[in-house]
């Protein structure tokens, strides 16, 4: 087993290494023209440029911070409203009957399609971005929290009832913990949707942020900077998923991951 995973890592490193060598070779020999894709050297130069003097009116960390701040704002509000609403819909059939048709109506519209509406209503500033992130992150939070409550085993509910657990204690000690795995699935989907939507929103129009870096680089036909933007879109998305995973492990210590 140990030998197998060691081999796996070695092959993975070799594969990534070979790709990097191929990248260098193809760009250095001009098989891939410089106007279409950047060489490793140009990539580092672009990275140094955006870190030092800056690009698209700000330095890299300012763009990253701007994007992450907006995602955090929209995501926290969406989860803060969406999870309780989903739990309530899972618990009360009245709530469910009232809200479900509205969800069925809104759900097929992809979050990205809200971007033009947000721009018409709120302009190109931060408020429009937070609105589309909210829309993107809201639906998965609600639906998965709802599924979480609906999938609680009935015997748990009956046991709690028999033991005379009070309502508030029931919610805090039975319902929420039992629904937690589904809630976290929902939050993970929410976060991914929020990040994708923000990048798209910034591409459509923004003053600062990673999407704006991509946008400016596309207009300048600057492949190296496009690559820098894409790498950081990936890194930030990965970092957020990782942080949520840490939170998940803390919140559910009884689940050996």
């Amino acid at each position, binding site marked *: 087993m140990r030998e197998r995973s060691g081999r796996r890592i070695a092959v993975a490193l070799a594969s990534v290494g070979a790709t990097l060598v191929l990248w260098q070779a193809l760009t250095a020999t001009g098989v891939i023209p410089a106007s279409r894709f950047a060489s490793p050297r140009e990539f580092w130069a672009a990275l140094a440029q955006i870190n030092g003097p800056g690009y698209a009116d700000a330095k890299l960390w300012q763009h990253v911070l701007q994007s992450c701040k907006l995602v955090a704002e929209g995501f926290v509000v969406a989860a803060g409203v969406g999870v309780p609403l989903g739990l309530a819909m899972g618990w*009360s059939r009245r709530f469910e009957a009232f809200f479900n048709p*509205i969800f069925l109506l809104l759900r*097929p519209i992809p979050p990205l399609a809200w971007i033009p509406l947000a721009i018409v209503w709120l302009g190109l500033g931060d408020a429009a971005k937070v609105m589309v992130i909210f829309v993107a992150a809201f639906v998965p939070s609600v639906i998965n929290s709802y599924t979480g409550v609906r999938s609680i085993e009935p015997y748990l509910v009956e046991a709690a009832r028999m033991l005379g657990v009070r309502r508030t204690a029931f919610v805090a000690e039975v319902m929420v913990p039992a629904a937690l795995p589904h809630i976290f699935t929902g939050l993970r989907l929410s976060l991914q949707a929020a990040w994708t939507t923000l990048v798209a929103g910034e591409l459509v129009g923004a003053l600062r942020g990673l999407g704006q870096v991509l946008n400016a680089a596309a207009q300048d036909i600057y492949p190296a900077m496009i690559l820098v933007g894409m790498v950081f879109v990936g890194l930030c998305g990965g970092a957020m998923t990782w942080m949520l995973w840490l939170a998940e492990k803390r919140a559910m210590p009884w689940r050996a991951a």
Partner: protein
Amino acid sequence: MSMDRAALTRAESWGLSFAGLAALLVGWTAVASSGLVPPQFLPTPLAVAERFVELTQKPFAGYTIQQHLVSSVGRYLMGFGLAALVGVPLGLAMGWFRWLDEVVSPLFEAVRFVAPIAWVPFAALWFGTGIGGPTLIIFMGAFPPALVNAYRGARFVEPRFIEAAQTLGAGSWRVITQVLLPASVPSIVAGLRISAGLGWQSLVGAELIVASSGIGYLLVKGQAGISTSTVMSGMIAIGIVGFAIDAMLRRVEAAIHARRGR
């Protein structure tokens, strides 16, 4: 403790559902016709419906809404079809050949972290704004679930099926096409359903930025003209097509499960 989980009668349930939708429409109409918000920013539901009908007859941004949808669906089928044609065979092969899995997986995982929409600048630079650019972005959205589910399907095939086939003299090609592929069909179709949804979503994003026709382009032009009713009409059309695609694939899924006696 009062448990609210009591079942509702059919009448109560319908009544509440109706009340929910009615509250949405009445609230919307009330705000829109109160004069607090200019109709240009928030038209009434009726005005949106009228605008939708008008868009089906009078061209906007060069085409009627049906023509925009046709060009969107064309790009979508290209991107989604390519993703399925590359993703499913590659996933099956990765499930069979360990070396291929070990070589491709790390690259795939690295690229997958990048949101599909971030490919927009390269898509425009490499393939332009006609059909190629949007197709690449749809491909990037639809490819990962197609590959991952085919891979998982192939990895979880009962080993005795494979052993039986090998005992009977089947080579890699026949194992993949005649054992792994049929055994993984449910997983593959489930993956394609996810692919279809993500692909449609990516198409909308792509057309917002790199297209000169299509339903996303209609949204952008509506936005530029500050015509909320046009934007909302486009959103409704996107929702309907997205819903229809998902409904179709769900039927395929159900038919496959029925044939397999599940």
